[in-house]
Protein backbone atom coordinates (compact mmCIF):
# COMPACT_ATOMS: atom_id res chain seq x y z
CA UNK A 1 0.00 0.00 0.00
CA UNK A 2 1.46 3.37 -0.92
CA UNK A 3 1.81 6.08 1.75
CA UNK A 4 -1.06 8.11 0.34
CA UNK A 5 -3.49 5.15 0.52
CA UNK A 6 -2.17 4.25 3.94
CA UNK A 7 -2.86 7.79 5.18
CA UNK A 8 -6.33 7.70 3.65
CA UNK A 9 -7.06 4.48 5.54
CA UNK A 10 -5.79 5.97 8.79
CA UNK A 11 -7.88 9.12 8.47
CA UNK A 12 -11.02 7.28 7.38
CA UNK A 13 -10.73 4.80 10.23
CA UNK A 14 -10.28 7.62 12.76
CA UNK A 15 -13.46 9.22 11.45
CA UNK A 16 -15.41 5.95 11.66
CA UNK A 17 -14.09 5.39 15.17
CA UNK A 18 -15.37 8.78 16.31
CA UNK A 19 -18.82 7.97 14.94
CA UNK A 20 -18.91 4.60 16.69
CA UNK A 21 -17.69 6.10 19.93
CA UNK A 22 -20.37 8.78 19.80
CA UNK A 23 -23.09 6.16 19.20
CA UNK A 24 -21.88 3.73 21.82
CA UNK A 25 -19.81 5.50 24.45
CA UNK A 26 -18.28 3.70 27.42
CA UNK A 27 -17.58 0.45 25.63
CA UNK A 28 -13.89 0.78 26.32
CA UNK A 29 -12.59 0.38 22.77
CA UNK A 30 -9.52 2.47 22.01
CA UNK A 31 -8.74 3.95 18.61
CA UNK A 32 -5.61 1.79 18.53
CA UNK A 33 -7.61 -1.41 19.04
CA UNK A 34 -10.19 -0.40 16.46
CA UNK A 35 -7.64 0.72 13.84
CA UNK A 36 -5.45 -2.30 14.56
CA UNK A 37 -8.31 -4.68 13.86
CA UNK A 38 -9.17 -3.00 10.56
CA UNK A 39 -5.53 -2.83 9.48
CA UNK A 40 -5.11 -6.54 10.18
CA UNK A 41 -8.18 -7.30 8.08
CA UNK A 42 -6.87 -5.20 5.21
CA UNK A 43 -3.52 -6.98 5.41
CA UNK A 44 -5.11 -10.43 5.65
CA UNK A 45 -7.89 -10.24 3.09
CA UNK A 46 -7.67 -7.17 0.91
CA UNK A 47 -3.98 -6.85 0.08
CA UNK A 48 -3.27 -10.49 -0.88
CA UNK A 49 -6.46 -10.75 -2.97
CA UNK A 50 -4.65 -9.32 -5.98
CA UNK A 51 -1.11 -8.76 -7.22
CA UNK A 52 -1.71 -5.04 -7.68
CA UNK A 53 -1.30 -2.67 -4.72
CA UNK A 54 -4.51 -1.70 -2.92
CA UNK A 55 -5.89 1.59 -4.22
CA UNK A 56 -7.61 4.34 -2.27
CA UNK A 57 -10.82 3.47 -4.13
CA UNK A 58 -10.61 -0.14 -2.99
CA UNK A 59 -10.06 0.99 0.59
CA UNK A 60 -13.08 3.24 0.28
CA UNK A 61 -15.22 0.36 -1.03
CA UNK A 62 -13.94 -1.88 1.75
CA UNK A 63 -14.76 0.68 4.43
CA UNK A 64 -18.19 1.37 2.94
CA UNK A 65 -19.03 -2.30 3.39
CA UNK A 66 -17.63 -2.46 6.90
CA UNK A 67 -20.16 -3.07 9.70
CA UNK A 68 -18.36 -0.60 11.93
CA UNK A 69 -20.81 -0.57 14.87
CA UNK A 70 -20.86 -4.36 14.97
CA UNK A 71 -17.08 -4.46 14.94
CA UNK A 72 -16.95 -1.87 17.70
CA UNK A 73 -19.27 -3.96 19.88
CA UNK A 74 -17.38 -7.18 19.13
CA UNK A 75 -14.06 -5.60 20.05
CA UNK A 76 -15.53 -4.33 23.31
CA UNK A 77 -16.90 -7.79 24.11
CA UNK A 78 -13.57 -9.40 23.27
CA UNK A 79 -11.86 -7.40 25.99
CA UNK A 80 -14.65 -8.27 28.44
CA UNK A 81 -16.41 -4.92 28.74
CA UNK A 82 -19.51 -5.47 30.92
CA UNK A 83 -21.61 -2.84 29.19
CA UNK A 84 -20.76 -4.34 25.78
CA UNK A 85 -21.79 -7.82 26.91
CA UNK A 86 -25.05 -6.42 28.21
CA UNK A 87 -25.68 -4.81 24.80
CA UNK A 88 -24.64 -7.95 22.96
CA UNK A 89 -26.86 -10.16 25.06
CA UNK A 90 -29.82 -7.85 24.58
CA UNK A 91 -29.35 -7.49 20.82
CA UNK A 92 -28.34 -10.98 19.79
CA UNK A 93 -29.14 -13.70 22.29
CA UNK A 94 -32.73 -14.32 21.19
CA UNK A 95 -31.65 -14.42 17.55
CA UNK A 96 -28.89 -16.92 18.35
CA UNK A 97 -31.40 -19.08 20.17
CA UNK A 98 -33.78 -19.02 17.21
CA UNK A 99 -31.02 -19.94 14.75
CA UNK A 100 -29.88 -22.77 17.01
CA UNK A 101 -33.47 -24.04 17.36
CA UNK A 102 -33.85 -23.95 13.59
CA UNK A 103 -30.67 -25.95 13.01
CA UNK A 104 -30.50 -28.31 15.96
CA UNK A 105 -32.63 -31.39 16.33
CA UNK A 106 -33.92 -30.77 19.83
CA UNK A 107 -34.48 -27.88 22.21
CA UNK A 108 -31.79 -29.29 24.51
CA UNK A 109 -29.32 -29.45 21.61
CA UNK A 110 -30.14 -25.84 20.71
CA UNK A 111 -29.58 -24.63 24.26
CA UNK A 112 -26.32 -26.56 24.45
CA UNK A 113 -25.13 -24.97 21.21
CA UNK A 114 -25.91 -21.43 22.35
CA UNK A 115 -24.19 -22.08 25.67
CA UNK A 116 -21.12 -23.47 23.92
CA UNK A 117 -20.99 -20.48 21.57
CA UNK A 118 -21.26 -18.04 24.50
CA UNK A 119 -18.36 -19.79 26.20
CA UNK A 120 -16.31 -19.61 22.98
CA UNK A 121 -17.20 -15.96 22.50
CA UNK A 122 -16.02 -15.15 25.99
CA UNK A 123 -12.97 -17.34 25.54
CA UNK A 124 -11.58 -19.91 27.91
CA UNK A 125 -8.15 -20.33 26.37
CA UNK A 126 -5.37 -18.13 27.72
CA UNK A 127 -2.39 -17.34 25.51
CA UNK A 128 0.53 -15.30 26.87
CA UNK A 129 -1.54 -14.36 29.89
CA UNK A 130 -4.46 -13.11 27.78
CA UNK A 131 -7.85 -14.69 27.32
CA UNK A 132 -8.58 -15.44 23.65
CA UNK A 133 -12.12 -14.48 22.74
CA UNK A 134 -13.71 -15.76 19.55
CA UNK A 135 -14.94 -12.23 18.98
CA UNK A 136 -11.38 -11.43 17.93
CA UNK A 137 -12.01 -13.43 14.74
CA UNK A 138 -14.86 -11.19 13.65
CA UNK A 139 -13.62 -8.55 11.22
CA UNK A 140 -16.77 -6.53 10.54
CA UNK A 141 -16.86 -7.51 6.87
CA UNK A 142 -20.27 -9.13 7.27
CA UNK A 143 -22.87 -8.32 9.93
CA UNK A 144 -22.26 -9.56 13.47
CA UNK A 145 -25.61 -11.36 13.29
CA UNK A 146 -24.56 -13.12 10.08
CA UNK A 147 -21.26 -14.11 11.62
CA UNK A 148 -23.04 -15.48 14.69
CA UNK A 149 -25.28 -17.49 12.38
CA UNK A 150 -22.18 -19.02 10.77
CA UNK A 151 -20.58 -19.73 14.14
CA UNK A 152 -23.78 -21.41 15.36
CA UNK A 153 -24.05 -23.43 12.16
CA UNK A 154 -20.54 -24.74 12.72
CA UNK A 155 -21.24 -25.42 16.34
CA UNK A 156 -24.31 -27.49 15.40
CA UNK A 157 -22.14 -29.44 12.95
CA UNK A 158 -19.56 -30.04 15.69
CA UNK A 159 -22.28 -31.18 18.06
CA UNK A 160 -23.58 -33.54 15.41
CA UNK A 161 -20.09 -34.86 14.73
CA UNK A 162 -19.52 -35.49 18.42
CA UNK A 163 -22.74 -37.47 18.59
CA UNK A 164 -22.16 -39.47 15.43
CA UNK A 165 -18.51 -40.43 15.61
CA UNK A 166 -16.73 -38.03 13.27
CA UNK A 167 -18.60 -38.24 10.01
CA UNK A 168 -17.50 -35.94 7.21
CA UNK A 169 -18.79 -32.40 6.95
CA UNK A 170 -20.23 -33.11 3.51
CA UNK A 171 -22.21 -35.98 4.93
CA UNK A 172 -23.22 -33.71 7.76
CA UNK A 173 -24.77 -31.07 5.57
CA UNK A 174 -27.23 -33.68 4.34
CA UNK A 175 -28.63 -33.91 7.84
CA UNK A 176 -28.67 -30.28 8.90
CA UNK A 177 -31.26 -27.67 8.00
CA UNK A 178 -32.48 -28.21 4.49
CA UNK A 179 -29.09 -29.65 3.55
CA UNK A 180 -28.55 -30.52 -0.05
CA UNK A 181 -25.11 -31.97 -0.36
CA UNK A 182 -24.09 -32.90 -3.83
CA UNK A 183 -25.04 -36.24 -5.22
CA UNK A 184 -22.51 -38.98 -5.52
CA UNK A 185 -21.93 -39.57 -9.18
CA UNK A 186 -21.72 -43.13 -10.43
CA UNK A 187 -18.20 -43.84 -11.55
CA UNK A 188 -18.62 -47.20 -13.18
CA UNK A 189 -16.82 -47.56 -16.45
CA UNK A 190 -18.42 -49.74 -19.04
CA UNK A 191 -16.42 -52.89 -19.58
CA UNK A 192 -16.45 -55.77 -22.01
CA UNK A 193 -14.89 -56.29 -25.36
CA UNK A 194 -18.03 -56.93 -27.35
CA UNK A 195 -18.90 -54.84 -30.35
CA UNK A 196 -15.34 -53.54 -30.53
CA UNK A 197 -15.77 -51.18 -33.42
CA UNK A 198 -18.90 -49.56 -32.16
CA UNK A 199 -17.23 -49.22 -28.79
CA UNK A 200 -14.26 -47.51 -30.36
CA UNK A 201 -16.48 -44.95 -32.04
CA UNK A 202 -18.46 -44.51 -28.90
CA UNK A 203 -15.29 -44.06 -26.93
CA UNK A 204 -14.01 -41.45 -29.37
CA UNK A 205 -17.25 -39.46 -29.19
CA UNK A 206 -17.40 -39.82 -25.46
CA UNK A 207 -13.89 -38.50 -24.86
CA UNK A 208 -14.50 -35.68 -27.35
CA UNK A 209 -17.66 -34.76 -25.43
CA UNK A 210 -15.95 -34.78 -22.06
CA UNK A 211 -12.91 -32.84 -23.28
CA UNK A 212 -15.02 -30.25 -25.04
CA UNK A 213 -17.29 -29.78 -22.08
CA UNK A 214 -14.28 -29.37 -19.80
CA UNK A 215 -12.84 -26.75 -22.16
CA UNK A 216 -16.20 -24.98 -22.31
CA UNK A 217 -16.36 -24.84 -18.51
CA UNK A 218 -12.88 -23.42 -18.33
CA UNK A 219 -13.90 -20.65 -20.70
CA UNK A 220 -16.39 -19.39 -18.12
CA UNK A 221 -15.46 -16.81 -15.50
CA UNK A 222 -15.36 -18.10 -11.93
CA UNK A 223 -18.63 -16.37 -11.00
CA UNK A 224 -20.39 -18.10 -13.92
CA UNK A 225 -19.05 -21.51 -12.89
CA UNK A 226 -20.10 -20.80 -9.32
CA UNK A 227 -23.61 -19.91 -10.44
CA UNK A 228 -23.94 -23.16 -12.40
CA UNK A 229 -22.64 -25.20 -9.50
CA UNK A 230 -25.03 -23.54 -7.05
CA UNK A 231 -27.83 -24.35 -9.42
CA UNK A 232 -26.99 -27.85 -10.58
CA UNK A 233 -24.77 -29.31 -7.87
CA UNK A 234 -26.09 -27.71 -4.70
CA UNK A 235 -29.67 -27.39 -5.88
CA UNK A 236 -30.05 -23.74 -4.90
CA UNK A 237 -33.35 -22.34 -6.11
CA UNK A 238 -33.47 -19.19 -8.19
CA UNK A 239 -34.85 -17.19 -5.27
CA UNK A 240 -32.03 -18.44 -3.06
CA UNK A 241 -29.43 -17.37 -5.59
CA UNK A 242 -31.13 -14.00 -5.94
CA UNK A 243 -30.92 -13.69 -2.17
CA UNK A 244 -27.16 -14.23 -2.38
CA UNK A 245 -26.85 -11.31 -4.77
CA UNK A 246 -29.55 -8.97 -3.49
CA UNK A 247 -27.18 -6.65 -1.68
CA UNK A 248 -26.59 -3.84 -4.15
CA UNK A 249 -22.86 -4.02 -3.45
CA UNK A 250 -22.74 -7.77 -4.04
CA UNK A 251 -19.74 -8.63 -6.21
CA UNK A 252 -21.67 -11.46 -7.86
CA UNK A 253 -24.27 -8.99 -9.00
CA UNK A 254 -21.59 -6.56 -10.14
CA UNK A 255 -19.99 -9.16 -12.36
CA UNK A 256 -23.19 -10.45 -13.91
CA UNK A 257 -24.59 -7.01 -14.53
CA UNK A 258 -21.46 -5.33 -15.85
CA UNK A 259 -23.11 -4.48 -19.13
CA UNK A 260 -26.71 -4.34 -17.97
CA UNK A 261 -28.73 -1.30 -18.97
CA UNK A 262 -31.15 -1.92 -16.12
CA UNK A 263 -28.26 -1.84 -13.68
CA UNK A 264 -26.94 1.40 -15.08
CA UNK A 265 -30.35 3.03 -14.94
CA UNK A 266 -31.27 1.62 -11.53
CA UNK A 267 -28.21 0.46 -9.59
CA UNK A 268 -30.33 -0.57 -6.60
CA UNK A 269 -32.91 -2.55 -8.64
CA UNK A 270 -33.89 -5.84 -7.04
CA UNK A 271 -32.41 -9.10 -8.31
CA UNK A 272 -35.41 -11.23 -9.28
CA UNK A 273 -35.62 -14.93 -10.03
CA UNK A 274 -35.97 -13.96 -13.67
CA UNK A 275 -32.73 -12.00 -13.39
CA UNK A 276 -30.92 -15.10 -12.15
CA UNK A 277 -32.53 -17.17 -14.90
CA UNK A 278 -31.09 -14.76 -17.45
CA UNK A 279 -27.63 -15.09 -15.88
CA UNK A 280 -27.95 -18.85 -16.21
CA UNK A 281 -29.04 -18.55 -19.83
CA UNK A 282 -26.08 -16.31 -20.59
CA UNK A 283 -23.67 -18.75 -18.98
CA UNK A 284 -25.23 -21.59 -20.94
CA UNK A 285 -24.96 -19.64 -24.17
CA UNK A 286 -21.19 -19.37 -23.59
CA UNK A 287 -20.82 -23.07 -22.80
CA UNK A 288 -22.90 -24.22 -25.73
CA UNK A 289 -20.97 -22.10 -28.18
CA UNK A 290 -17.61 -23.13 -26.82
CA UNK A 291 -18.64 -26.79 -26.65
CA UNK A 292 -19.63 -26.82 -30.32
CA UNK A 293 -16.53 -24.86 -31.36
CA UNK A 294 -14.29 -27.39 -29.59
CA UNK A 295 -16.01 -30.39 -31.14
CA UNK A 296 -15.83 -28.81 -34.57
CA UNK A 297 -12.37 -27.31 -34.61
CA UNK A 298 -10.40 -29.55 -32.25
CA UNK A 299 -12.08 -32.89 -32.89
CA UNK A 300 -13.15 -32.22 -36.46
CA UNK A 301 -16.74 -33.33 -35.91
CA UNK A 302 -19.65 -32.42 -38.17
CA UNK A 303 -23.00 -31.08 -36.94
CA UNK A 304 -24.44 -34.59 -37.35
CA UNK A 305 -21.63 -36.10 -35.29
CA UNK A 306 -22.11 -33.47 -32.60
CA UNK A 307 -25.74 -34.55 -32.37
CA UNK A 308 -24.53 -38.13 -32.07
CA UNK A 309 -22.21 -37.10 -29.23
CA UNK A 310 -25.17 -35.60 -27.40
CA UNK A 311 -27.29 -38.68 -28.05
CA UNK A 312 -24.60 -40.97 -26.70
CA UNK A 313 -24.02 -38.72 -23.70
CA UNK A 314 -27.74 -38.82 -22.95
CA UNK A 315 -27.73 -42.61 -23.13
CA UNK A 316 -24.71 -42.73 -20.84
CA UNK A 317 -26.47 -40.40 -18.44
CA UNK A 318 -29.25 -42.89 -17.95
CA UNK A 319 -26.81 -45.72 -17.35
CA UNK A 320 -24.82 -43.54 -14.94
CA UNK A 321 -21.56 -43.97 -16.84
CA UNK A 322 -21.08 -40.53 -18.37
CA UNK A 323 -18.07 -38.63 -16.93
CA UNK A 324 -17.27 -41.65 -14.85
CA UNK A 325 -13.58 -41.27 -15.59
CA UNK A 326 -13.36 -37.58 -14.71
CA UNK A 327 -11.64 -38.30 -11.44
CA UNK A 328 -9.06 -40.64 -12.88
Amino acid at each position, binding site marked *: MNPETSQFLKDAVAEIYQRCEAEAPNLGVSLDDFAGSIERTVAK*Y*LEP*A*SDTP*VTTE*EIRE*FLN*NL*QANDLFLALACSVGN*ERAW*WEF*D*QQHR*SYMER*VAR*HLAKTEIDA*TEVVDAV*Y*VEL*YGTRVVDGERVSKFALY*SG*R*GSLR*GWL*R*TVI*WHSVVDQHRAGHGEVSL*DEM*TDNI*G*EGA*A*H*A*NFAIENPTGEDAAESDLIRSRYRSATVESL*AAAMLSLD*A*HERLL*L*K*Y*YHVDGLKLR*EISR*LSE*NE*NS*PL*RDWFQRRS*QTREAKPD*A*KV*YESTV*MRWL*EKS*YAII*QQRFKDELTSKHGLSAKEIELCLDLATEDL*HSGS*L*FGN*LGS
Partner: protein
Amino acid sequence: MKEFEKIAKVNDRFQAIVAEFLIADDSTISGSLQHIDDDTLTAFTEGSMSQREAKPVVAHLAACGHCRNITVELVRTEMAMAGEDRTEMATESTPATISSVLSGIVSRLFERNDAAVFAHGEKEEDDEEDKAEEKDKKE
Protein backbone atom coordinates in the same frame (compact mmCIF):
# COMPACT_ATOMS: atom_id res chain seq x y z
CA MET B 1 -29.81 -37.96 -12.07
CA LYS B 2 -30.53 -34.87 -9.99
CA GLU B 3 -33.81 -32.99 -10.46
CA PHE B 4 -33.64 -29.23 -11.02
CA GLU B 5 -35.80 -26.47 -12.43
CA LYS B 6 -35.25 -26.33 -16.17
CA ILE B 7 -33.70 -23.28 -17.77
CA ALA B 8 -36.28 -22.22 -20.30
CA LYS B 9 -34.07 -21.29 -23.22
CA VAL B 10 -31.64 -24.16 -22.98
CA ASN B 11 -32.15 -27.62 -24.44
CA ASP B 12 -33.13 -30.07 -21.66
CA ARG B 13 -30.73 -32.73 -22.86
CA PHE B 14 -27.78 -30.37 -22.80
CA GLN B 15 -28.74 -29.12 -19.33
CA ALA B 16 -28.81 -32.66 -18.00
CA ILE B 17 -25.38 -33.36 -19.47
CA VAL B 18 -23.89 -30.15 -18.06
CA ALA B 19 -25.44 -30.83 -14.65
CA GLU B 20 -23.92 -34.31 -14.50
CA PHE B 21 -20.58 -32.97 -15.65
CA LEU B 22 -20.56 -30.36 -12.88
CA ILE B 23 -21.50 -32.92 -10.22
CA ALA B 24 -18.77 -35.31 -11.36
CA ASP B 25 -16.24 -32.50 -11.66
CA ASP B 26 -17.08 -31.22 -8.18
CA SER B 27 -16.51 -34.55 -6.52
CA THR B 28 -13.03 -34.77 -8.01
CA ILE B 29 -11.61 -31.42 -6.90
CA SER B 30 -13.02 -30.57 -3.48
CA GLY B 31 -10.70 -32.61 -1.31
CA SER B 32 -7.35 -30.90 -1.39
CA LEU B 33 -8.29 -27.24 -0.93
CA GLN B 34 -7.69 -25.06 2.10
CA HIS B 35 -11.10 -23.91 3.27
CA ILE B 36 -12.51 -20.43 3.81
CA ASP B 37 -12.95 -19.04 7.34
CA ASP B 38 -16.33 -18.21 8.93
CA ASP B 39 -15.77 -14.49 8.73
CA THR B 40 -15.21 -14.59 4.96
CA LEU B 41 -18.11 -17.01 4.37
CA THR B 42 -20.41 -14.64 6.23
CA ALA B 43 -19.27 -11.60 4.26
CA PHE B 44 -19.70 -13.49 1.00
CA THR B 45 -23.22 -14.74 1.74
CA GLU B 46 -24.23 -11.24 2.76
CA GLY B 47 -22.77 -9.80 -0.44
CA SER B 48 -20.82 -7.29 1.60
CA MET B 49 -17.43 -7.84 0.09
CA SER B 50 -15.46 -5.67 -2.30
CA GLN B 51 -14.74 -7.09 -5.75
CA ARG B 52 -11.07 -7.32 -4.93
CA GLU B 53 -11.70 -9.46 -1.85
CA ALA B 54 -14.42 -11.49 -3.55
CA LYS B 55 -12.43 -12.62 -6.57
CA PRO B 56 -10.36 -15.34 -4.86
CA VAL B 57 -13.36 -16.31 -2.73
CA VAL B 58 -15.58 -16.87 -5.78
CA ALA B 59 -12.82 -18.85 -7.50
CA HIS B 60 -12.48 -21.01 -4.40
CA LEU B 61 -16.22 -21.58 -4.06
CA ALA B 62 -16.51 -22.55 -7.72
CA ALA B 63 -14.02 -25.35 -7.02
CA CYS B 64 -14.75 -26.30 -3.42
CA GLY B 65 -17.98 -28.14 -2.73
CA HIS B 66 -17.28 -28.15 1.00
CA CYS B 67 -17.24 -24.36 1.41
CA ARG B 68 -19.97 -23.85 -1.16
CA ASN B 69 -22.16 -26.22 0.79
CA ILE B 70 -21.72 -24.10 3.90
CA THR B 71 -22.75 -20.96 2.00
CA VAL B 72 -25.84 -22.83 0.77
CA GLU B 73 -26.77 -23.74 4.34
CA LEU B 74 -26.15 -20.17 5.49
CA VAL B 75 -28.34 -18.67 2.78
CA ARG B 76 -31.14 -21.09 3.58
CA THR B 77 -30.87 -20.48 7.31
CA GLU B 78 -30.79 -16.74 6.72
CA MET B 79 -33.90 -16.92 4.55
CA ALA B 80 -35.70 -19.04 7.11
CA MET B 81 -34.79 -16.57 9.83
CA ALA B 82 -35.66 -13.48 7.80
CA GLY B 83 -39.40 -13.89 8.24
CA GLU B 84 -38.98 -14.22 11.96
CA ASP B 85 -36.70 -11.20 12.09
CA ARG B 86 -39.44 -8.94 10.88
CA THR B 87 -41.69 -9.92 13.74
CA GLU B 88 -39.00 -10.19 16.31
CA MET B 89 -40.21 -9.17 19.72
CA ALA B 90 -38.08 -7.86 22.50
CA THR B 91 -36.38 -10.70 24.27
CA GLU B 92 -38.10 -12.00 27.35
CA SER B 93 -34.90 -12.74 29.16
CA THR B 94 -33.22 -10.00 31.09
CA PRO B 95 -29.97 -8.78 29.57
CA ALA B 96 -27.18 -10.07 31.65
CA THR B 97 -23.69 -9.36 32.80
CA ILE B 98 -20.89 -11.64 31.60
CA SER B 99 -20.59 -13.35 34.93
CA SER B 100 -24.30 -14.11 35.25
CA VAL B 101 -24.49 -15.36 31.65
CA LEU B 102 -21.52 -17.64 32.11
CA SER B 103 -22.52 -18.90 35.54
CA GLY B 104 -25.96 -19.74 34.14
CA ILE B 105 -24.33 -21.68 31.32
CA VAL B 106 -21.98 -23.53 33.63
CA SER B 107 -24.79 -24.58 35.96
CA ARG B 108 -26.91 -25.73 32.99
CA LEU B 109 -23.99 -27.76 31.65
CA PHE B 110 -23.58 -29.58 34.95
CA GLU B 111 -27.30 -30.23 35.30
CA ARG B 112 -27.43 -31.57 31.74
CA ASN B 113 -24.46 -33.88 32.25
CA ASP B 114 -26.17 -35.42 35.27
CA ALA B 115 -29.43 -35.79 33.43
CA ALA B 116 -27.71 -37.29 30.39
CA VAL B 117 -26.62 -40.31 32.42
CA PHE B 118 -30.26 -41.23 32.95
CA ALA B 119 -31.64 -40.01 29.64
CA HIS B 120 -29.27 -41.95 27.39
CA GLY B 121 -30.95 -43.27 24.23
CA GLU B 122 -33.00 -40.24 22.57
CA LYS B 123 -34.14 -6.67 -23.92
CA GLU B 124 -36.06 -9.04 -22.73
CA GLU B 125 -34.03 -8.19 -19.75
CA ASP B 126 -35.66 -4.85 -19.09
CA ASP B 127 -39.15 -6.10 -19.98
CA GLU B 128 -38.97 -9.05 -17.68
CA GLU B 129 -37.53 -7.06 -14.84
CA ASP B 130 -40.21 -4.43 -15.25
CA LYS B 131 -42.90 -7.12 -15.11
CA ALA B 132 -41.30 -8.67 -12.08
CA GLU B 133 -41.06 -5.33 -10.39
CA GLU B 134 -44.73 -4.61 -11.05
CA LYS B 135 -45.68 -7.98 -9.64
CA ASP B 136 -43.49 -7.29 -6.65
CA LYS B 137 -45.15 -3.95 -6.04
CA LYS B 138 -48.64 -5.53 -6.22
CA GLU B 139 -47.62 -8.08 -3.63
